[in-house]
């Protein structure tokens, strides 16, 4: 199918947008990246995702698919001849889905809660939550990877994509002096993070930490600014 038949509507800083881009790279499927302007929703976005009006959106021919993990599963099933993204065993699939949901519902809110926390106590509590969640993921990594480089085994899979997409933001958080992944506390995940970011499907879509940090600064400034009239 021609590259123009596959489009991703998104923004370079979004970890959710990174997920389907990695998935398409794994499948060696070319696509057009339609960059949304920050702070302004295009007519195409509103028309393609009327329910949430959010990125990412995958446009495949005349079909639109929304919600990052739904899109990743769609990509895995629509291009079934490429390397598999979800595990083949149904129990392993349930395990991968469970941890991906945990990452989205608990772990990432804990990560993004840190810069939003007001006061020392709240910040300490937010950090505590994030670190205990990360310890659970370290355990999950050992169970799922079974000694191999990725949650998915020898190559990147669903759970790698779900967690790995947040590595850019994780590194931005670490710039402020907090250690989240390191060789002592989380040896498995520390090694996994390096392998993930070095992978050919990930390299070109993972933003540079400095660039993301600048974006984060701009974002928080905008969030704290009084609303414009």
């Amino acid at each position, binding site marked *: 199918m021609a590259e123009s038949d596959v489009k991703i509507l998104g923004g370079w800083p979004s970890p959710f947008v990174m997920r389907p881009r990695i998935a398409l790279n794994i499948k060696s499927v070319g696509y057009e990246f339609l960059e949304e302007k920050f702070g302004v929703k295009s007519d195409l976005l509103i028309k393609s995702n009327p*329910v949430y009006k959010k990125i990412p959106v995958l446009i*495949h021919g005349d*079909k639109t*698919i*929304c*919600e990052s993990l*739904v*899109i990743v*599963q*769609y990509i895995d*099933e*629509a291009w079934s001849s490429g390397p598999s993204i979800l595990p083949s065993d*149904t*129990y392993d*699939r*349930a395990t991968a*889905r*469970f941890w991906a*949901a*945990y990452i989205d519902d608990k772990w990432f809110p804990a990560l993004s809660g840190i810069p939003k926390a007001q006061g020392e106590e709240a910040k300490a509590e937010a950090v505590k939550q994030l670190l205990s969640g990360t310890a*659970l993921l370290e355990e999950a990594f050992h169970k799922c990877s079974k000694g191999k480089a990725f949650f998915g085994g020898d190559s990147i899979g669903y759970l790698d994509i779900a967690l790995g997409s947040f590595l850019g933001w994780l590194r931005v958080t670490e710039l402020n002096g907090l250690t989240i992944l390191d060789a002592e506390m989380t040896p498995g995940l520390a090694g996994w993070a390096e392998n993930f970011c070095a992978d050919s499907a990930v390299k070109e879509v993972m933003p540079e930490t400095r660039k993301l940090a600048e974006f984060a600064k701009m974002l928080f400034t905008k969030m704290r600014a009084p609303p414009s009239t």
Partner: protein
Amino acid sequence: MADEITLLDFWPSPFGMRVRLALTLKGIDYIYKEENLQQKSDLLLKSNPIHKKIPTMIHNGNPISESLIMVQYIDETWPKSSSLLPSDPYGRSQSRFWADYVDKKVYDCGRRTCFAKSPEEGDAAVKELLECLKVVECELGEKLYFGGENLGYVDVALVPFYSWFYAYESFGGLSIRDECPKIVAWAKRCLENESVAKSLPDQQKIYEFVVTMRKKFGVE
């Protein structure tokens, strides 16, 4: 080896109902264990140490939790009978999207409608509940079921909430039948299926449960 399935559950839970329904639709035998949520069993705490929540299913010693993940697991492990997800990738993506929408919206608005601590909170919850039911009603359109001609994944995800409708209406001061007639008609159509009728408690029982819980939470 015969399959051994235990479902740890709590009878009013719409999430538990989803799993009961999926197993029943597929004709799969299982052992139902009612959990006391004030005193969770060792088995539940061991099987779902992360969330410690029901429903949790144990299949041949392997625990699975999170209702929609469980329903997909059931559909994939027993693919031959009553497929819940469509076979084409796009159809599957749409089913997953809408089941996820039900998860994000219906439960929370419904809970806030029943247990609102102030009239303002209640009104806001009712408004949101109706909004999301109308969105879902629009998605149903003229189809018999969300799954098309037969019950599917989204039907399984949503129909348990029908058992809570009388509670939503009584405490929210609304008529879902008037506001979303197609959803009510769809739910009644689902209930004509024996598996659905078996898996959903009576609306009156749920209402009485909510009355008890409201007293417990000190909601007047």
